[in-house]
Every structure is written in structure tokens, then in C-alpha cells.
């Protein structure tokens, strides 16, 4: 079993090495097979592990590979922890990952062979680091995966490196992630100083011994890391810019997996968060705020990928809202369903972009449903899922979060429902503008329109099936007794959540009903409005503010980036050259000046020398007789 566990993460690493070292001589087909094949085999092995984990009475397995850092009493090992939570994430990563790899073999086929191999090399490295993140048995291994996926994100966003704007987007992603990582690191050091260990089991068992303030500080710092990685307020602006990367990258990294790292980390640390109610409130509030902010921006975006990007930010807000009200299982459930439908939506968008010869503006699209039938149906299914229409997966997961939010505080529920309405609205605005109505693009584009090849459509179909039926894995108790399979599966790790505890069955039905009806009505409204009259004019007034992302980027530029540059310029020109170097060079000049002045003593005049002699003798006398006591 242990070797199987190691193999899961090792295979993508091998794929990375093979594609990386033999890039120049690797034919495209082979690169694609190595890249996707390793992930497929990892997925199969994960299924085998999953079968084991699913059994009743399963004890989490820890695999200790080797001692990583040992310093006196601090022992950090390179270890893996296999329990239901990590297994679930592993399944999502390798499963959805494989589908996206397969899709990429066709999507990226226009690249040259070395670049093609480079793409799969980076993608495999990403899967390796992501697996490391979820399989780690302590915070340090998690952090290794954490930063590693940040690196791969940087490499893949800037994949087409000739374009400097893409490079800037990649840099922004990395730096913003790093800002979050600062919080994570401080939390790590605090954990070491308090508990003397970073292993999950030791930290969680010793957690109740620490003071609430301490746990609150640590959890807040960890959450800062999560806001960076999972694009919450205030560190979310990198995610929309990250759409500069290839679409499968956006699907895998910025929708299904990397951005969920923050959720995983908070879910894993639920013991700590349960001990710090204040942090939970912060998480929930920021999650809620992000839901609304991102949704409002998505309403006015015209780039198909940007809409999906802001949608991701918003959905991540839902997950954090879930975590913040203590609904850990529900949040993880939403991670799973979101992985399905968001990856589906992104891959569908990729298919559209591919068919439109690279066009991404939805105002130039329209009526694509007759040219791209499979893409159309799967995209529609994805939209229904994300809008939360039963019986699609998004409905179950979102509703469970909303129910749990209502328990904690009805305001959260209202915010969540508002977000759901906005979600339904902008998603169907996107759907209708893209696929319905008449085609608004150029002649040339229309000629090129064709359905994507099998390697792209089959993953779409697979994900569509998952997005449709995936929700049945976690049906809330209210529908049928003992039906929440996912809740039972994750129960040993995350604690069973008993929804019957505080609200009655009828309230729960009513909540579900209200949100469904509101969402469905928005769907119908948006479908009707945008299929007839797509939104082509430039927005004005509040709409303009929403389209311009509420000027958050500009605020950051003005408040942080420009003052920092000015400050460093000041330091360089004034402090460095003027003050410090001035002192040093000034000392040298002072010495030269005084030596020039002293030189005048050497006048060659005998009289002068004698005078000095006499003065010296008198001085000696004075010192000797009067000043020495």
C-alpha cells in the first residue's frame, strides 16, 4: 500500500522529468501520451487506494519517507497522510486532471514539439506539487506543495513568454501568492514555537492547550495565506489576469485544483478553526463579500474567460463561507462539484475559442449552438449546475452551504442567495450571448467554425455527466435518511455535521425552495433577455464601475505599487548615493583635504619650526605641572 501511495505522486514527477529532459527530441504524440498517461495511471492507483479508504473502520495511514529537517526537538519528516479528505482531493486532482490533460493533447496541437513537451512537463509538475499539497502529513510538506503550485502557475500563465503582458500577469500571480505565503509562514513559525511540531496529528491533539488568542492569530495568518492562493479579498486580482494562460491551464489550475488549496488547508485545520470563533467569522465575512464583489464584476465582463474567472472567485467565496460557518464537509463537497462544472465550463470555453480561431470576446459570438452541438449541450449543463438548479450537482452543494449559513446567521443566507441570483444571471447571460441568437463575428471566423475533435469533446462529455450526477454523492439528509454518502465518508476527518440540529425540516425545504425559485427565475430572465438582445454597448454609470472591476487594481497600483517604486527610488538616489556613500566618500575627501591643509606646516621656514618647538615645550610644561594630579 505504501508503495502505491508514493507512486501516485511519483508518476507525475517522472512525467515531468521525461518531458522536460527530452524536450527537444520528443515527438508530440509521445509527449501527450507520457503527460496524460502518468496522470491516468495515478488516477487508477488512487481509485485502488480509495477502495481501501472507503471501508468501514479505516485508520489514516502515514507514510514516512525520510527525515526532511531535524533540528533538536523539531522533527519534520517528508511524510504523506492518507485519509478520506486527502483521498477525495487526490481523486479530484488526478481524475479531473487526466481529463484536462487529454483535452490539452488536442487543444495545444498547434504548438511546436519542444513547446508542446514543455507544456506537459509543467502540467505534470503542477499535478505533482498539488498531490504533495493534499497528501502531506504536516504543514511543511503542505507548504512545499503550496509554493510549488504557485511556481507552476507562474510558469504556465507565462507559457507564451513572447508576450510581455502575459509575463506580467504571471509575475503578479506569483507575487500576490507570496504575500499570502508570508502569513502562512508566520503561522507556521508560531505553531512551531507553541507546539514544537508541524505534524497535523500532533498540532491538532495539542491545540486545546493553547490560548484562544493564539489559535485565533494562527488561524487568521493561515487564512491570509488562503486568501492569496484561493483568490479572496484582498488578494484576488491575480486570478482574472491569470486567464492569459492557455485555457486548459485555467481549467485545471485556476478552477479545479490550485485555487482550492486554500479550502483544503482550512478544512484540514478545522480543529484549529473550531477553537477560534472570531477567525471563523472573518472567514465567513470575507467569503461573503467576495461572493458579491466578484459576481457583480462578472455581470459586465465580455471576455468569456474573464466571466468564468470572476465566477471562480465568487464560487470560492461560497466555499469559504461554508468553512466559516463550520460546514467543512459541505465546503469540500462544493469543491468537488465546482471542479466538475467549472472545469467543464472552462474546457467548453476553450472549445469555443478554438472554434472561433482565438476570439474570446462574446460580443463577436452568437448562435454557436448549431455549429458546436456537443460543446453547446455540455456548456448548458455546466451553466445549469453552477446556477444551482436541481437536480444538478451545484444545487446540492450550494444549498447545503446556504442551509448551514442560515443556521449561523440569516444574513449569510441572504448574501448567499443574492450571489446565487447573480451567478444564474451572468452565467446565462454568457450562455445566451455565446450560443443563442445570430452569429455576430466575421466571415472568416464563421468559415472556420467547427466542432472540436474527439480528444476535446469526450472530456467535455465526461465532465458534463459528472456535473449532472455528481451531486447525488452528497444529498442532504432531508431528502432521504442516510443518503449523504460524502458526509459519512469525510465524517471521521471533518466531523459529522448534523443539519437537523437547529433548523426544522420544513425550514430547510423552504430555504431550498426559495433559492431554487429565485435562481430559476434569473435563469429564465437572462435567457430570454440576452438571446433576443445581446449586450453590445459599452456600459455606463454603475455598469461601468462593475465592468471596470470596481477599480480595485487601480487602487492597488496607486496605494501600493507606485509609492513602493517611489520609495525605492528615493532610497537609491538619496540614501544610497547621497547619505551613506556620501559619508564614506566624504571621509576620504576629508582626509585628503586635511592632509592638504596640514601640508602648509612644511613651509621650509626655520623660524616656523622653532616656533612650533617652543609652543610644544610650553605645552608640555603646562601639562606636566598643572594638569597632572
Amino acid at each position, binding site marked *: 500500500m505504501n508503495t502505491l501511495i508514493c507512486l501516485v505522486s511519483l508518476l507525475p514527477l517522472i512525467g515531468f522529468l521525461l518531458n522536460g529532459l527530452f524536450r527537444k527530441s520528443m515527438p508530440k504524440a509521445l509527449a501527450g501520451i507520457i503527460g496524460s498517461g502518468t496522470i491516468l495511471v495515478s488516477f487508477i492507483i488512487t481509485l485502488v487506494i480509495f477502495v481501501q479508504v472507503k471501508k468501514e473502520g479505516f485508520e489514516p495511514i502515514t507514510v514516512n519517507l525520510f527525515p526532511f529537517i531535524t533540528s533538536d526537538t523539531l522533527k519534520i519528516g517528508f511524510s504523506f497522510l492518507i485519509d478520506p479528505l486527502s483521498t477525495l482531493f487526490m481523486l479530484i486532482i488526478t481524475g479531473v486532471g487526466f481529463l484536462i490533460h487529454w483535452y490539452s493533447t488536442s487543444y495545444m496541437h498547434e504548438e511546436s514539439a519542444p513547446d508542446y513537451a514543455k507544456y506537459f512537463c509543467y502540467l505534470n509538475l503542477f499535478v505533482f506539487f498539488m498531490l504533495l499539497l493534499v497528501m502531506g502529513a504536516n504543514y511543511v510538506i503542505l507548504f512545499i506543495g503550496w509554493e510549488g503550485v504557485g511556481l507552476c502557475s507562474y510558469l504556465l500563465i507565462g507559457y507564451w513568454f513572447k508576450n510581455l503582458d502575459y509575463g506580467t500577469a504571471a509575475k503578479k500571480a506569483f507575487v500576490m501568492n507570496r504575500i499570502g505565503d508570508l502569513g502562512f509562514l508566520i503561522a507556521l513559525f508560531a505553531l512551531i514555537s507553541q507546539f514544537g511540531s508541524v505534524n497535523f496529528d500532533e498540532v491538532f491533539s495539542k491545540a486545546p492547550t493553547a490560548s484562544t488568542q493564539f489559535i485565533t492569530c494562527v488561524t487568521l495568518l493561515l487564512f491570509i495565506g488562503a486568501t492569496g492562493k484561493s483568490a479572496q479579498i484582498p488578494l484576488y486580482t491575480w486570478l482574472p489576469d491569470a486567464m492569459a494562460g492557455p485555457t486548459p491551464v485555467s481549467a485545471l489550475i485556476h478552477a479545479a485544483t490550485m485555487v482550492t488549496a486554500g479550502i483544503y488547508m482550512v478544512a484540514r485545520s478545522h480543529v484549529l478553526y473550531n477553537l477560534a470563533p472570531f477567525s471563523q467569522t472573518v472567514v465567513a465575512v470575507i467569503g461573503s463579500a467576495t461572493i458579491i464583489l466578484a459576481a457583480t464584476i462578472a455581470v459586465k465582463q465580455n471576455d468569456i474567460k474573464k466571466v468564468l474567472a470572476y465566477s471562480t472567485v465568487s464560487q470560492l467565496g461560497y466555499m469559504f463561507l461554508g468553512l466559516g460557518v463550520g460546514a467543512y464537509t459541505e465546503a469540500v463537497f462544493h469543491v468537488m462539484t465546482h471542479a466538475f462544472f467549472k472545469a467543464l465550463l472552462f474546457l467548453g470555453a476553450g472549445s469555443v475559442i478554438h472554434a472561433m480561431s482565438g476570439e474570446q470576446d462574446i460580443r463577436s459570438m452568437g448562435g454557436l449552438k448549431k455549429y458546436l452541438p456537443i460543446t453547446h449541450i455540455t456548456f448548458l449543463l455546466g451553466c445549469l449546475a453552477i446556477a444551482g438548479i436541481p437536480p444538478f450537482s451545484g444545487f446540492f452543494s450550494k444549498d447545503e452551504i446556504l442551509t448551514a449559513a442560515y443556521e449561523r446567521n440569516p444574513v449569510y443566507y441572504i448574501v448567499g442567495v443574492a450571489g446565487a441570483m447573480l451567478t444564474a444571471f451572468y452565467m446565462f447571460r454568457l450562455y445566451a450571448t455565446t450560443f443563442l441568437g445570430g452569429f455576430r463575428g466575421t466571415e472568416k471566423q464563421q468559415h472556420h467554425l467547427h466542432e472540436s475533435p474527439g480528444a476535446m469533446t469526450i472530456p467535455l462529455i465526461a465532465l458534463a455527466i459528472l456535473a449532472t450526477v455528481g451531486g447525488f454523492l452528497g444529498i442532504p439528509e432531508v431528502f432521504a435518511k442516510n443518503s449523504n454518502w460524502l458526509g459519512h465518508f469525510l465524517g471521521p476527518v471533518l466531523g459529522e455535521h448534523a443539519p437537523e440540529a437547529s433548523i426544522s425540516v420544513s425550514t430547510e425545504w423552504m430555504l431550498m425552495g426559495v433559492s431554487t425559485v429565485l435562481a430559476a427565475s434569473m435563469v429564465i430572465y437572462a435567457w430570454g433577455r440576452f438571446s433576443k438582445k445581446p449586450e453590445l454597448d459599452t456600459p455606463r454609470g454603475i455598469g461601468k464601475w462593475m465592468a471596470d472591476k470596481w477599480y480595485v487594481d487601480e487602487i492597488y497600483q496607486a496605494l501600493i505599487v507606485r509609492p513602493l517604486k517611489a520609495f525605492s527610488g528615493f532610497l537609491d538616489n538619496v540614501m544610497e548615493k547621497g547619505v551613506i556613500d556620501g559619508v564614506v566618500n566624504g571621509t576620504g575627501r576629508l582626509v585628503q583635504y586635511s592632509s592638504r591643509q596640514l*601640508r602648509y606646516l*612644511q*613651509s*621650509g*621656514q*626655520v*623660524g616656523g619650526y*622653532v*616656533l612650533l618647538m*617652543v609652543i610644544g615645550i610650553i605645552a608640555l610644561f603646562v601639562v606636566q605641572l598643572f594638569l597632572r594630579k
Partner: protein
Amino acid sequence: MPINYYIFLAIALFCIGVAGVLTRRNAIIIFMCVELMLNAVNLLLIAFSKMHHAEVATDPNAGINGQIFVFFIMVVAAAEVSVGLAIIAMLYRNTHSVDVNFLNRLKH
């Protein structure tokens, strides 16, 4: 006579000598002033020698050190004058003047 008179006289002579050494340009005058300084010191030494001799009644050799030292000073003065005048003679031969201000070849 009270010792003070001798002290004041010796100081006066010494100061005149120092002033002369510092301010005069003629090398020979400078030498004379140096002699003045030395003789002032001689005067002082003898005066103190006599004072010590007068104070100590028992010892016939009291205060003799001062007078012996005067002899040393006189000998040194004589030697110094002979060497110094020889240098001045060489100085005159080279620069045709005994002006001390012309000796500035050591200037950088």
C-alpha cells in the same frame, strides 16, 4: 638679595632671548639670542646655588651642583657656537646672505 630679583632678571633675559630667536632674521643675531638664553639660565643656576648654600649651615658643599652645572652649560655653549658659526659661514658661501628666510628648500 632676595632670590626673586634674580628670578625676574633671569626670566626677562630668557624671554628677550626667545623673542629674538623667533622673530629675528639674521642668523648671527639668532645665535646671540641663544647665548642670551643660555646665560640667563646660568645666572639662575648660580643664584639658586648661593641660596641653597646660605640655607644649609652645616654642609660646606651644599648647593654646589648648580655651579658645576654652569660649567657644563658654558662648555656646551662654546661648542655649539663654534659649530653654528661654521654652518653660518657655509650658509653665507652658498646664498650670500645670512637671512634665515632663504632656507626653505625643505618645502614640499
